[in-house]
């Protein structure tokens, strides 16, 4: 079920994420990698990730109330959800996204 987006609790439609990162910062590099990995694993083909480098657009981050990097915002499906950190704790991410968390995190 983790391979098919239409399965389980996940509503129809693509997952849309925006990640605010600081290019080159260790936590940010990790977060990007982790986000792509989670998306590929849980909803391949049906996700989009918008990447914003706060070092390039510092005022935008400030205006959008982004203070810690990395910050991931799930824009769709609703409701909007913010996740901060390098996404190393996958269970937390899945819970935040409303996806069922498996006892065993390793793929079948």
């Amino acid at each position: 079920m983790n391979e098919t987006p239409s399965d389980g609790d996940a509503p129809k439609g693509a997952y849309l994420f925006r990640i605010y990162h600081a290019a080159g910062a260790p936590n940010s590099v990790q977060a990007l990698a982790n986000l792509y990995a989670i998306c590929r694993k849980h909803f391949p083909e049906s996700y989009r990730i918008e990447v914003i480098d706060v070092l390039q657009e510092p005022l935008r981050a400030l205006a959008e109330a982004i203070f810690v990097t990395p910050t991931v915002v799930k824009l769709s499906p609703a409701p909007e959800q913010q996740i901060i950190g390098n996404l190393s704790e996958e269970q937390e991410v899945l819970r935040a996204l409303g996806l069922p968390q498996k006892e065993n995190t390793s793929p079948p």
Partner: protein
Amino acid sequence: MSDKNRTTLLEKISSGIEGFDDLTAGGLPRGGTTLLMGGPGSGKTVLALQILVNGAIAHGTPGIFVTFEENARRVSANGEAFGWDMPELAREKVHFVDACLRADVVKSGEFDLTGLLAGIEVKAREMGAQLIVLDAIDVLLSLLDDPAAECRELHRLHEWLVRQELTGLLTTKIEDDQPATAQRYGFMPFLADCTVLLSQRLAERVVVRTIRVLKYRGSPHVLNEVPFVIGPAGVEVGSSNGVHPEPQPFTERVSSGVERLDTMLGGGLYRGTNALLTGSSGAGKSMLAGTFIEAACRRQERSLFISFDENSRDIARDLATMSIDLAPHLASGLLRMESIRSEAASSEEHFMRIKRLIAEQKPRCVAIDPLSALARVGGGLAARAVAERLIYVCRNAGITVLFTSLLEGLDPQLETTALHVSTLADSWIQISYALLAGERNRALSIIKSRGSKHSHQLRALIFSDQGVTLAEPGTSDGEAPAGTWRPGKENARQTEAPAAAVSARARPGKGKSA
């Protein structure tokens, strides 16, 4: 060379708060980090905002205020409550950044402050900001949930401030007012160039706030704990140093409002000095204080009458029964009367309030009735220190002050005041009761009067619908004539003028109506 280094090291940004600058020998370290620590409600946010606002108003120095805990709009509204024009300041001088994390935010793994610092960096450059306040930094750090990461982020912040040549003011909560036991952020004071601790505790049901500079790298600072209040205009820090320029002594005399008392004092009180008026309850201290103030108003001198625990209207009404009318002076603004409940605040707060009233009214004559009310809350020692400072404040401003003080106890020989302020008093006037011929009569005497000869007589003090006066000097047998006994005594003395006795009661010589 090293001297040059030292001066750059010690460059300060004034806080715009007199007492705070006294404590820190000039204010915050420019280009350094200052840490404000305190328990919840200890005044960290207000103090930080006030320093930022003062800098913007006084020196046009822009600053950025980042909130991690409180909604930025609320902080701004708080500032408006203190009379600071936040909307105007927000246009270009003060920028608020609301960095409160959303309540539903989920944390997964480590994060850092790069995003925030990148944003502030650009904003600071854009507006030329010099001071950055990071309010409740502990809220953000606690999210990291890892002491090593917290330390790392603080270092990052510190390094960033240094690199940007910005002055940082960080506030953080601590528990139990114990900076040493705040293990969690034990490293913070080491990072900061200046660490300030705000505390509040209860002393006899009244909150007493204190401020203490724990450390100040490369700068002298006051080591003692100093009281402060959060008043209607923000934080006021009690001055710690008693160093004031000695005011030029006045030779001008100021009338006490009672002509015969002036004569006894050798011509009145010296301007800029203080007089202590003691007496037991009901002796008429307030009436004499009112007389003094009314005389000042008639000389067109701005005046202030502060009464503790008694409605000023009641005092004005009582005075009116003696044809001492304060109403026109109150109406014209020449006189301001303020009633203060002694138990409503600590003696320190009373002091700040009186200081504020003096600053607003700019009086030349002040009556404080009674000063002993200060001792009712917070203990005699604190109250005495406050009384002392009050006397200095007035002396430095050239204000002539009349303090009244309740005399406790029945032994008039002891003549002690609740605050033991009699040693501080320039003049000391005592109202006592004399029991004569089955009557209790008021008698006035001067115990001391610095720098001038004074009468040692005990004179009957007479309140009548014509005003306040003193009876003629005592009779040849050394007794002070008073009450109904006095006319009799006088009649016996002046058998040739028996009718004069009654009219002698009517304040002879007092030119009030003139």
